């Protein structure tokens, strides 16, 4: 199908974009990479009156190192993240996960901010940001605020963003020595939305500490599971009794079925992806 008609604005600076978003009278939608919004508009699931295209905002396109963080402008495209030496060096979890996000032609357009703002429960980016303890910087005409990724994703396509706000940048703490990461997802075809996936960061210096285990495509949002992390923290490797306990805890997650897999399948696959990601970290 074709999208319904809409008004279109392409502001050339952030202030102008925020002014357009500040209009509470109409149905305003931000257009980032468009790789999810355009299909939704073509299906008429989204019919905004005004589309504010952020693709002219060069001040939202950057990857830089500052204050122990990697700061990424929200309009940075996936392909730019993949090719960035800073990301390769300091955010290895991104380097592992990015090739699984859709296909090259999608990654050439899709942006980190767009995926974060959409909060698709099957998307990789929310889980990655929670696992990395990232900070999401939101801007509106009334100022700026920082939101921890763990507090940003509230439910199915629901975030802590308020009316008039957009994501300006995302800040990822540079990991300390000894920090390892794992990522695994199962999809029907390479690049499809996952049937179940997991992102893990962990300090592997004996004993294991600071584990963060975040599942995606299993529930209504990316889900951090402290009960599973507790099985990892304090041991030297995950096996035997702790692995059995971890499996039990994974089974207790709030699973939601979707078109690709029902609840029982997702329960099984969540355990599979966790075991494979752990095996990769400790191999």
């Amino acid at each position: 199908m074709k999208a319904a008609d809409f008004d279109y604005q392409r502001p050339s600076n952030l202030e102008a974009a925020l002014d357009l978003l500040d209009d509470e009278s109409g149905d305003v939608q931000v257009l980032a990479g468009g790789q999810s919004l355009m299909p939704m508009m073509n299906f008429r699931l989204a019919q905004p009156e005004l589309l504010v295209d952020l693709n002219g905002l060069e001040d939202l396109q950057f990857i830089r190192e500052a204050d122990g963080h990697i700061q990424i402008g929200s309009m940075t495209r996936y392909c730019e993240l993949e090719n960035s030496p800073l990301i390769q060096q300091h955010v290895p979890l991104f380097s592992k996960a990015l090739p699984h996000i859709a296909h090259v032609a999608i990654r050439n357009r899709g942006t980190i901010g767009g995926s974060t703002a959409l909060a698709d429960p099957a998307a990789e980016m929310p889980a990655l940001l929670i696992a990395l303890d990232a900070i999401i910087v939101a801007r509106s005409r009334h100022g700026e605020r920082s939101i921890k990724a763990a507090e940003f994703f509230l439910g199915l396509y629901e975030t802590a963003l308020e009316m008039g706000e957009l994501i300006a940048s995302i800040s990822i703490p540079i990991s300390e020595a000894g920090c390892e990461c794992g990522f695994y997802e199962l999809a029907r075809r390479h690049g499809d939305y996952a049937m179940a996936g997991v992102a893990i960061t962990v300090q592997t210096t004996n004993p294991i500490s600071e584990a963060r285990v975040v599942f995606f495509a299993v529930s209504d949002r990316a889900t951090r599971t402290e009960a599973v992390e507790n099985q990892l923290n304090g041991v030297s490797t995950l096996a035997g009794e702790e692995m059995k306990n971890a499996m039990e805890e994974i089974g207790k997650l709030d699973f939601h079925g979707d078109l690709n897999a029902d609840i029982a399948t997702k329960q099984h696959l969540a355990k599979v992806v966790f075991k494979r990601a752990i095996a990769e970290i400790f191999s």
Partner: protein
Amino acid sequence: MINSQNISLVVNGEPVSASVPNRTNLVDFLRNQLGLTGSHVGCEHGVCGACTLEVNGSMIRGCLMLAVQADGAEITTVEGFTSRDKAAQLQRSFQKNNALQCGYCTPGMLASALEYVEAGGGADRAAIRQHLSGNYCRCTGYQSIVDAVVDVIEQGAKQ
């Protein structure tokens, strides 16, 4: 509501100016207003890859970009690829390997294969399949398409 815009862009090396409705996607504009029917419209939600084309040097989905967003852009479609060495080789190799039957996916498949070959991708079949995973073909079973891409890479290595 202002529902159309004037855009100026370069398509296959030629400057173009046009008035386009906001809601028109790039591939519909190329096909319906410019008559460049090489890029195909399949699923209209970014899954099938039939509309894959080049914008400012990157392969993208023509159905997931608005024509108004292409203002100032440089666009190359399958009609414009042929002047590039690797594209011509891929086209001959697709023909030789029977890498198409109905041909619906072929322009998008060529675009994605061209991106892989021009970036210096190796003749590793798994890597080629991964790169082409965003392009659906319902005729060939992909085997012959991968054969065609491998042939071009191996010929390039011999030269």
